[in-house]
């Protein structure tokens, strides 16, 4: 699928001056972030922040990504030929919308004395957004099937 890199490609993927400049500037920004984090340790709880950050990265790399790959492979076989791509794309958007909406739908952060916060019916909101997403997907599938039939 991939051919060996050409000479310019090898040059482009090397670590030239741009890399070292990026490292110098980026390290400065990271150092400033770490100093800020530790200088306000009572509020920022650096250990908790670090644990949270690493847990999110590992959670993605070792759980979410492999699970997604497995699910995608399974669904690929289950989906009808010709519209697999559209269904996969719509499922991706569905997963992201549901994940984003979870704290809204559950109302985990709701403030009982403040009805102006989370004032909507978010379950219906999710249904509306997903109806729009799957409406677009359906239109694309119909278009695809008709084009193939023509």
């Amino acid at each position, binding site marked *: 699928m991939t051919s060996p890199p050409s000479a*310019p*490609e090898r*040059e*482009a*993927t090397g*670590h030239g001056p741009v*890399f070292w*400049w*990026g*490292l110098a*500037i*980026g*390290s400065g*920004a*990271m150092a*400033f*972030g770490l100093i*800020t*984090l530790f200088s*306000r340790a009572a*509020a*920022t*709880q650096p250990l*908790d922040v670090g644990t949270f*950050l690493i847990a*999110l*990265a590992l959670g*993605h*790399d070792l759980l979410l*990504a492999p699970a*997604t*790959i497995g699910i995608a492979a399974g669904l690929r076989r289950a989906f009808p*030929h010709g519209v*697999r*791509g559209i269904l996969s*794309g719509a499922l*991706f*958007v569905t997963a*992201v*919308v549901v994940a*984003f909406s979870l*704290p*809204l739908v559950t109302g*985990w*952060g709701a*403030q009982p*004395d*403040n009805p*102006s*916060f989370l*004032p*909507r019916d*978010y379950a*219906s*909101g999710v249904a*509306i*957004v997903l109806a*729009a*997403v799957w409406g*677009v997907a359906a239109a694309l599938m119909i278009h695809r099937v008709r084009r193939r039939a023509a």
Partner: protein
Amino acid sequence: MNLPTRIRRLTPPRVGPFREEAFRSPLYSARVASILGLALGVTFTVCFVTGFLSHLIQHPPSFFGWPPRPGWLYRVSQGVHVTTGIASIPLLFAKLWTVYPRLWVWPPLSSIPHAIERLALVPLVGGSLFLLFTGVGSISRWTPWSFSFPPAHYSVAWITIGALIVHVGAKAGTARLALSRRSIARTNEGRARDGLSRRGFLGAAFGGAAALAVATVGQTLRPLAAVSVLAPRDPRIGPQGLPVNKTAASAGVLDLATSDAWRLVVEGNVGNPLSLRLEEVLALPQREAHVAIACVDGWSATARWRGVPLRDVLALAEAPIGSGATVVSLQRPGAAYASSELDPSQIGDPETLLAVELNGEPLHIDHGFPVRLIGPNRPGVQQTKWVASVVVR
């Protein structure tokens, strides 16, 4: 024998996800990764700049002054910050998907620069997920963590942007090549015959970003309020038609704010200290102003306020021209956002008011009764409610 060759010879055979053919999808492509990387580079830079601006406004260093005009600037800046962050979510997951095989590259380390490049991915990936997760948690008030959100989010933003700069330095050449015309021709050769195409994958990522943006931006862009069905706020909903961030009950000021003993005190560097009852405040010359409340959470709403210009109150107290001031709330000292600072330019703006009315009615208790500060181009947390005193510097 050079270092990479030595490392290759020393490393054990490739197994599991390290196998050359472990990831076969055509979506694992440098071109797709570069397009998504470019988009994320833009969105993260926008979020960083607008977030840094918000930080500077709330914690101004001596060299920084934030003008009261244009009055719309902060609401746009913070609305862009939150909406762009939300739109980044599908882009980030799509990007992580398309570069996932690179996590298992063999040999894992081929040179010192390569090791540095890979090490920088920990703060980049972890920091990006952290910023988006805590950002979404914060605007939905779901905070399953022990740290204080603003300083932690701010610190990790610097760490992440630093790691992003390192990553851009390492990948600029690869991305330039992957985005070139020659790359398009090569990419099309390896096109998927069935399943999600690269164009379809990018369409889903950017379509998802657009869907989330439209579904939430109405909390600050009023014409879209009706279609933003996933926005944590609706600029049309709340007491007197305006959302509330913190209620009087949760601030613990219900009794103090409604007590007959309440006075508006003006003190500090003044020639004529004041202690005014509410009737006396109401008897002062008033003016009306259309000023937006712009919350750090990304929602904003314009309302019609009526009150006494702060500069007139300070003139009555014989404060020196060019003074700064601290507006102090009835909240217990030390409580978050219990006071706010104003510099001379903000005090001098005729629409910076000690407001007593909202949309034609006396202030609702949750909007700061009996008196609140309202001024153009200020974060909502600096529009101090339940004002007890103004201390002139």
